[in-house]
């Protein structure tokens, strides 16, 4: 644990000294979207049956999660560079398991989104977003966003470790936009065309968004617990699945 903590501190220091990808991207892009897109589509909220008013409040959950998707790949790239530059070799000669390097990178992904989520949440509230029972729900919401950052980041680790290329994860960046607009982030299910509804129902991101929405403006349908439960289940399963690939791949890459 000592090793993981020291390495996490190293990652945070490094991230803070070169903050563009790890810290600025997660703030800047969701803010663009929630200010510009939410203004452009403001009138969508007047469609009969639209569940949340104003439109920015509807969009907020997706934007909070989108913050966790920005800059994903930064950690995976950094991990591969640690292997390629020989940092990992030096680490292996210290009394610390190489897994602590991986763990420190995953924790970094969880931590780095916290300031971004706080800023995006603040702006969302200014634009009309709200969180019910904030004392409990705000910390819970931040925790879920951190978990999403780790779960979604896992995809980038899989690609990086399988290809052993530091560039490969960066090429995956557009995936976030695809997931975002093929879900209920910007539009409720009943307004999506039939073919997109099919995709959105299979898109795990949809359930994470609805889980967050349950904590903010309340669930679109069903109970808070049900929506939250589905969201957490998706996060846990996604994280477990990606780690099932990541941990053995990393061990192989590191040992011999």
């Amino acid at each position, binding site marked *: 644990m000592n090793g993981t903590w*020291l390495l996490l501190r*190293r990652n945070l*220091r*490094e991230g803070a000294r070169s903050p563009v990808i790890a810290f600025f991207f997660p703030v800047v892009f969701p803010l663009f979207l929630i200010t510009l897109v939410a203004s452009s589509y403001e009138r969508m909220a007047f469609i009969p049956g639209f569940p949340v008013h104003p439109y920015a409040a509807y969009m907020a959950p997706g934007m909070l999660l989108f913050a966790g998707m920005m800059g994903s790949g930064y950690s995976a790239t950094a991990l591969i560079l640690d292997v390629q530059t020989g940092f990992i070799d030096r680490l*292996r*000669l210290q009394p610390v398991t190489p897994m602590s390097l991986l763990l420190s990178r995953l924790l970094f992904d969880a931590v780095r989104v916290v300031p971004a989520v706080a800023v995006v949440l603040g702006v969302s509230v200014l634009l009309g977003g709200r969180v019910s029972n904030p004392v409990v729900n705000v910390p819970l919401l931040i925790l879920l966003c951190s978990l999403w950052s780790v779960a979604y980041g896992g995809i980038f680790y899989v690609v990086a470790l399988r290809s052993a290329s530091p560039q490969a994860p960066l090429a995956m960046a557009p995936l976030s936009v695809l997931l975002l607009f093929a879900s209920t982030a910007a539009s409720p299910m009943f307004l999506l065309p039939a073919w997109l509804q099919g995709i959105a129902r299979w898109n795990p991101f949809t359930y994470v968004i609805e889980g967050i929405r349950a904590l903010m403006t309340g669930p679109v349908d069903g109970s808070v617990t049900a929506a939250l439960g589905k969201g957490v289940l998706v996060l846990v399963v996604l994280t477990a699945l990606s780690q099932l690939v990541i941990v053995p791949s990393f061990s192989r890459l590191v040992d011999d």
Partner: protein
Amino acid sequence: MTGIEVDELGKVYPDGTTALAGVSFQVPEGQIFGLLGRNGAGKTTTVRILTTLTRLTSGRARVLGRDVDREREQLRQEIGLSLQQAALDQLSTGREHLDLIAGLRRMPSRAARERTAELLAVFGLDSMADKLVATYTVGMQRRLDTAMALVGRPRLLFLDEPTTGLDPQSRRALWQIVRQFRQDGGTVLLTTQYLDEADELCDRLAIMDGGRIAVVDTPAGLKRGLGGKVLVIRPAPAEPIEALDRLLAEHTVRREGGALHIDLTGHEEQLPDMLATLRVHGVSGCDLSLTDPTLEEVFVRLTGDGAETSGRGAEAAGVAAIGRTIVSHAGGRR
């Protein structure tokens, strides 16, 4: 006690490349031992196996009495390693690097602070200690890397090409640190491509080629024991002398600094003919001298003189043995 014992060490990588084909040598504690060879000779693989970073595929190796394959964890506590490519974080300071290693080794914070300060002073990095590594020169980065290897006070230090790419001052500074480490009782195994470095620094050295050891000896022993003298003609005759060229066809001739170096290994009996030819052609005012070969000449005899090797290097290594030469094989002048 023996610092390093290597017995018939072999390494075949999963892609089928044979990096080491039966390497054996011993290093007593308290010596600086050099592995000299070209790129691809197997030096780095040897270091990686001895530092437990890569598994061996055959043979045995013990470092400080510990088996590199079965006692990895214990051995890692007792050795220090500085790799060829300095693995430093450009966005961290020198002090942060040393602190990280001290922390990972669970040194108490006071002891860690003292050790860090001591190493920064010894390596001449005090004034740069709190600047980002990105602002360091190559020499400073290399020194920091070596300092990191010493944080845990290892008994044995591995240095993989410690001075590649350094300017002469930085090289000398690093040599001095290595000598001091030995003087304090430490053992050093270093790899190098530089013959002068091996000559200057090593108590004993092994010349590696094609995954084997061609020869192990002291630098002086290598120069003395490995056959022939070198005839030096200074200054070199301005005009080529045809008769001399005929005589020299089988010898290794090197022009260096206005002088002609003729490797006489295995052809000592032709020396009188050469001298007669030179006299007939009126080579006068020249300084003729017979000298021991330089380490470079020994190296070339053992590993061939082509710039790139693989196939021929391996063949040369097979042929090479003390007292035998591969001069004719290496193919004349260059």
